[in-house]
């Protein structure tokens, strides 16, 4: 027999694997053009970039939630609802207790409960994944509306400037003077990248998303691992909710997540299911929401604020349309696993 030694079969370096770098590069190009157009001062530009970092944290966390779920074979369009519920829980728990840590614990545990719910509906009772996510979204809207109480305040998130690095001229203010959630988001992407590519957990997770029966026939419990992963993802959704809270510093029952849970899915697709790809994509999307708020703030140009408000949403559609069929989903995505 012959050995198959076709170079295309082996995992060699592929220039396309650097594709995620394109995203920030495009972003930089667009920003430079726009900033020149608006004639912004260096300070204003700094504000936009720092806002980009803040705005991309929830999107990145949301995309990581999506990646964990989809790599395991579960479509999660309930991220919006998860962010809403965890943000709600964190805000009112922190407000009632006066402790931020209690809020964090509330976000994580509620997030994991929502993850368990997604797991139970899609794995155990085999509900259509998109319907299950919709149930979660509708429930989140109803629940937070019904139990919302006005006039609460919570302790604000600390700012964690990174010593030394924050003093780097210009860039230090943009990159290293943030609340904890911004750093955690980047760390989260790195951890997930490592986990998916270099650990047993990652190998098994990819297997149950691509070909669950293959995993089953070598003795891996598809059901258990899917449950575990979607629950972990729920915890990450809690971090997404906390990231929104870190910027907004209070919960609003009329527009807390404002579609970020769905934009996160676009971020995931644009990042081609890769954590670092999602990081790049989140920065790009984050930039456009930062641009939106800065434009509204500075009021330097004569565009109605409603149109500026459309920017992140229109951008999402444009990016997805440009992406086309490029993102390859895990093969067994959305299909219930049945033993034949």
């Amino acid at each position: 027999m012959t050995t198959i030694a076709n170079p295309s079969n082996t995992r060699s370096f592929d220039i396309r694997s650097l594709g995620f770098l394109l995203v920030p590069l495009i972003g930089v190009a667009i920003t430079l053009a726009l900033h020149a157009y608006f004639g912004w001062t260096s300070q204003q530009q700094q504000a936009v970039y720092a806002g980009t970092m803040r705005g991309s944290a929830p999107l990145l966390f949301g995309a990581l939630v999506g990646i964990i779920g989809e790599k395991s074979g579960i479509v999660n369009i309930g991220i919006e609802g998860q962010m809403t519920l965890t943000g709600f829980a964190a805000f009112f728990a922190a407000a009632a207790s006066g402790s931020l840590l209690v809020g964090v614990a509330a976000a994580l545990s509620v997030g994991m409960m929502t993850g368990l719910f997604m797991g139970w509906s899609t794995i155990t009772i085999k509900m259509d994944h998109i319907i299950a996510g919709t149930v979660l979204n509708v429930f989140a809207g109803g629940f937070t509306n019904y139990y919302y109480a006005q006039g609460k305040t919570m302790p604000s998130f600390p700012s964690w400037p990174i010593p030394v690095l924050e003093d780097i001229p210009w860039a230090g203010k943009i990159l290293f003077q943030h609340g904890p959630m911004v750093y955690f988001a980047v760390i989260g992407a790195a951890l997930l990248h490592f986990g998916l590519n270099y650990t047993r957990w990652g190998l098994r997770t990819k297997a149950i998303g691509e070909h669950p029966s293959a995993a089953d026939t070598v003795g891996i419990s598809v059901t258990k691992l899917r449950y575990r992963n979607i629950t972990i993802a729920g915890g990450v959704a809690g971090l997404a909710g906390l990231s929104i809270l870190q910027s907004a510093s209070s919960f609003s029952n009329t527009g807390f997540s404002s579609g970020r849970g769905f934009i996160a899915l676009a971020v995931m697709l644009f990042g081609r299911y890769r954590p670092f790809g999602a990081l790049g994509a989140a920065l790009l999307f984050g930039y456009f929401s930062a641009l939106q708020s800065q434009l509204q703030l500075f009021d330097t140009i004569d565009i109605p604020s409603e149109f500026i408000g459309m920017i992140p949403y229109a951008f999402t559609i444009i990016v997805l349309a440009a992406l086309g069929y490029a993102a390859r989903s895990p093969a067994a995505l959305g299909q219930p696993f049945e033993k034949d």
Partner: protein
Amino acid sequence: MEPAATPATGRFADGPSDEIGPILLEARGITKRFPGVVANDSIDLTLHKGEILGLLGENGAGKSTLVKQLFGIYTPDEGEVFLRGQPLPINNPGDAIEHGMGMVHQHFQLVGPLTVAENIMLGAEKTGGGIFGVLAGRRAADEVRELSERFGLDVDPTAVVEDLPVGVQQRVEILKALYRGAEILILDEPTAVLTPQETDELLQVMRDLAASGVGIIFITHKLREILAVTDRVVVLRGGKWVGTTATAGSTQESLAELMVGRAVVLRVEKGEAHPGDVILDVKGLRADDDRGQQAVKALDLSVRGGEIVGVAGVEGNGQRELVEAITGLRKATGGTITIGDDDTTNWSPRHISELGVAHVPADREKDGVVGGFSIADNLVLNTYFKPPFAKGIVRQFDVIDAQAEDLIEKFDVKTPSIKTPSSSLSGGNKQKLIVARELTAINKLIVAAQPTRGVDVGSIEFIHSQLIAQRDAGHAVLLVSAELDEIFGLSDRIAVIYEGRIVANLPVEDATREQVGLLMAGAGVHDEPVNA
């Protein structure tokens, strides 16, 4: 029925007495019921060390169900399994693997985007320790390399599985079992996807493994292979055990009769062909597969009225893309397709079918029927829009129903009613439904891809006779099949496809199985044979 003897002496009389090793595996009274059917009815089976046991039966005879219970994928409703004399509850594949069983499934259980080494170690990963379970990738690759050398199963551990040819993927499957120390190997229809040469290689690997002490259960419905490699054969029919015989002394005819339950004519009866004008003419055709790779490369092919041209080839050599390009389901990136007098290159599927082109698709569940639709609706799937089935945009249900009643009668589709959803039909009846729909219209050209795959012998005979009737009525028939027996039985001419080209065009009288087999494997295309 077989005597319920003790395992120690049970079937020694049946086997080759000089080479019998100790019993590895024994199943007693295995019964499995699914809603509406008894898939396995009290089946017994023993496997000895170093033995190759054939498991023979038609599609739907219960072979796969049986081994899935041995391997813990299904739990038997009744019966017991003994491993090395110990009764062992095997509740999941994990248990089976732990007790030294390995299975190569009919549909490969490989994760496409992962590498060979990753696939092989999946579930039994080597890690560098620590709580994170960091994979020791290099060590695993070395072990896989060592293992593949030891058993003569050559693969590159770093290759990505989905890029490998099926024959190599199968080696990965076998290695996966051996990596886990399997002493019992179950091979479920392993030759269905292989060339005759690859099949021979696999049979040799099986002999070598058996010689080193592995017990092998070999599932197939190909009599030739059973005779070539097994020591004993267990035959199933309709979920029941019908016999266990020693291979030595059996013939194709005796086994076929056991398998089907009546004397079977292994040859298709057909008269002389009377080829007329060229109806299908494909010149220099190019088409891409779903991943954008060129799958059909400057392909030439023609079919005359009144003849059946059989396209022989190993699956994945461009047959699917060829059929889809002819029927308009896939874009041709180059070349021309002429049907009758029309250049139909890149016409829409509707336009082509209206020209009188029938298409029996290879993947019947995916393309051929809409499972949730009634039989009546499926029978008008591509004629629903025209008279008499519709007036304007309004569908005419009385006409649709009348046609359905007529066709299920004529084509022997066994169903309680024309309103029954087609998803509840058996594979053979679904296929007859499709054949009924496609052959009822007035056709010039019939494109039949894998028309009898997964179909029972009775339906195969019926479908074959229908295709021959079409030929005798002067229509052109293009048959694409992975079964050489079918190609040889039906075709007037054989066109061998290899890597997207027709590499040979032979009148059936002049062709031999060996020659076609070699051509399918690419011999004569490259300077040296691929499997040297």
